[in-house]
C-alpha cells in the first residue's frame, strides 16, 4: 500500500465537497473491509481517501410508511440484529447474517457493500428481490435509483457517478404473507463467498403464484435479476413441473466465472438446481 491523503470530514456537505473536488483521484472510505484489501493489492490506488466515519446522520435504521430507511453507513451487523429490521423486513436481517464473519459484519457498511458491487456478495440479490432503492447524494443534488434496473453494470461497476455517495438504502416492507428463501451454496467453508446464491420472494393464493421475485448472486458479472423465471410462473399454478421448467430458464441468464469454487459449467448447473430449490421453498 502506498501513502494517500486521509480526509475525515465532519459534515455531509463537507464530505460531498471533498468527493466533488476529488472525482478523479478520490474514493469515499466507509468501513474499509473491501477497500483496504483492494488497496493492499494495488487494485485501488486513489490519492485521496474521504472517510465517512465522522459524518453525522449516515447511520441508523428508521421505520417509515414505505419501508426501512437505512443510513448508508449502517453496519451489516446492525441490520442483522435490529429489532426494527427483523420485524418489517426479516428477510433482510437473515441475508445480512450470511455475510462473511461477525468481524467483517461489525465493520462493513450497507452503502459501502452496495457500492463495492462484487457480484458474489449476499445482500444484492436479496435487495433486488425486495425492491430496494438507494439514495445517491452529491454536491449538486440527489437522486433515488432502483437496484434492479441497471444499477449494477459489471464486475465492481455501478451507475454511481463520481462525486456521488450512497447516503440511504430504502427497503420496502416485506409483503404480508410473502415467503422468502436465500440459498447460498457453500461447498468449501461457511464464511466463503457463495459458489452460487439465489434469493427468492413470493406470494401465492390457492396454489397460484401472485407475485414472484428471483435474483442470483455469484453467477455473472453482476447480481442477476431473473425476470424470465418470474414471468414463467406468475399467474400460473405452482406445480413441481412448472417450477422445474422455470428454473431451467436461469441457465441462459447466468454467466459464471471459472474459479476454484467450480467451473463455469458446474456453476451454471448449480444455478439451475439452487433456483429450483429456492422456488420450491417459496411456492410449494
Amino acid at each position, binding site marked *: 500500500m502506498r501513502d494517500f491523503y486521509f480526509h475525515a470530514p465532519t459534515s455531509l456537505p463537507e464530505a460531498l465537497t471533498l468527493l466533488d473536488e476529488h472525482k478523479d483521484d478520490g474514493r469515499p472510505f466507509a468501513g*474499509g473491509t473491501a477497500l483496504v484489501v483492494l488497496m493492499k493489492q494495488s487494485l485501488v490506488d486513489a490519492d485521496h481517501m474521504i472517510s465517512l466515519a465522522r459524518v453525522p446522520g449516515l447511520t441508523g435504521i428508521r421505520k417509515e410508511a414505505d419501508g426501512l430507511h437505512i443510513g448508508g453507513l449502517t453496519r451489516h451487523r446492525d441490520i442483522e440484529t435490529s429489532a426494527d429490521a427483523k420485524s418489517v423486513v426479516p428477510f433482510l436481517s437473515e441475508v445480512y447474517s450470511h455475510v462473511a464473519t461477525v468481524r467483517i459484519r461489525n465493520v462493513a457498511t450497507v452503502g459501502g457493500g452496495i457500492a463495492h458491487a462484487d457480484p458474489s456478495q449476499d445482500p444484492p440479490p436479496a435487495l433486488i428481490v425486495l425492491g430496494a432503492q438507494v439514495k445517491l447524494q452529491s454536491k449538486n443534488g440527489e437522486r433515488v435509483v432502483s437496484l434492479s434496473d441497471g444499477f449494477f453494470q459489471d464486475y465492481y461497476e455501478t451507475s454511481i457517478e463520481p462525486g456521488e455517495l450512497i447516503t440511504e438504502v430504502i427497503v420496502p416492507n416485506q409483503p404480508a404473507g410473502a415467503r422468502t428463501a436465500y440459498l447460498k451454496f457453500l461447498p468449501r*467453508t461457511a464464511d466463503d463467498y457463495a459458489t452460487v446464491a439465489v434469493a427468492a420472494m413470493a406470494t401465492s393464493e390457492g396454489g397460484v403464484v401472485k407475485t414472484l421475485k428471483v435474483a442470483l448472486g455469484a453467477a455473472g458479472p453482476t447480481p442477476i435479476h431473473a425476470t424470465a423465471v418470474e414471468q414463467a410462473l406468475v399467474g400460473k399454478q405452482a406445480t413441481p413441473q412448472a417450477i422445474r421448467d422455470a428454473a431451467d430458464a436461469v441457465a441462459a441468464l447466468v454467466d459464471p466465472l471459472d474459479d476454484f469454487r467450480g467451473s463455469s459449467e458446474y456453476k451454471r448447473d448449480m444455478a439451475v438446481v439452487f433456483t429450483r430449490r429456492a422456488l420450491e421453498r417459496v411456492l410449494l
Partner: protein
Amino acid sequence: MNDASQPHQIHLTVNGKGYDVSAPTRRTLVDLLRYDLGLTGTKEACSVGVCGACTISMNGSIVASCITLAVQADGADITTIEGIGTPDNLHPIQQAFIDCGGFQCGICTPGQIVATKALLDENPKPTEDEIKEWLMGNLCRCTGYYQIIDSVKKASGQPVAPTPGAV
C-alpha cells in the same frame, strides 16, 4: 495541501492506556499495535481479514486489525489480548483454553480468545452451534476445533465431555 506521506497524529486508548502515535496513512492497525506500541500479542497471518489471527476489540466490537487502517482507530477504545489477562492473572477464558487443550502452536489463540470474550460478553451461555457460527472466521491449523469449542463451553460454565488427547 501537505504531502500525502506526512504522518497522521493518532490518539487511541489500548487496554485502558492512552497513546499518541504518529503514523503514515498506509499503516494498518495491526502494524501500529505491534510495531509502534510493541503489543505483539496480536498476530497477523492472512492479511486480508479472513483468518481471524489479528482479531481485536474496537469500541466494543471485534474487528480484523489487518484490514483496519490505523487512522480509522483515531479516538478508538481498543482491547487486545494483552488487556484480557496477564501471565500471573489469567482470564477464565485463557484458563479454559489451557484446561481443554484449546491450542498447540498458539498463533491463532489471541484471536480465538478475543473473539470468545466478545461472544461471551454478548451471549454468556452460547450453544455449540452459536459457538461454531461465531468462531468460524477464526482459523486454526493444528489444534482442531473440538478442543476450541470445548474451551469456550468450559469458559461459559457449561459441561465439557473429556476430549481424548487434551492436556
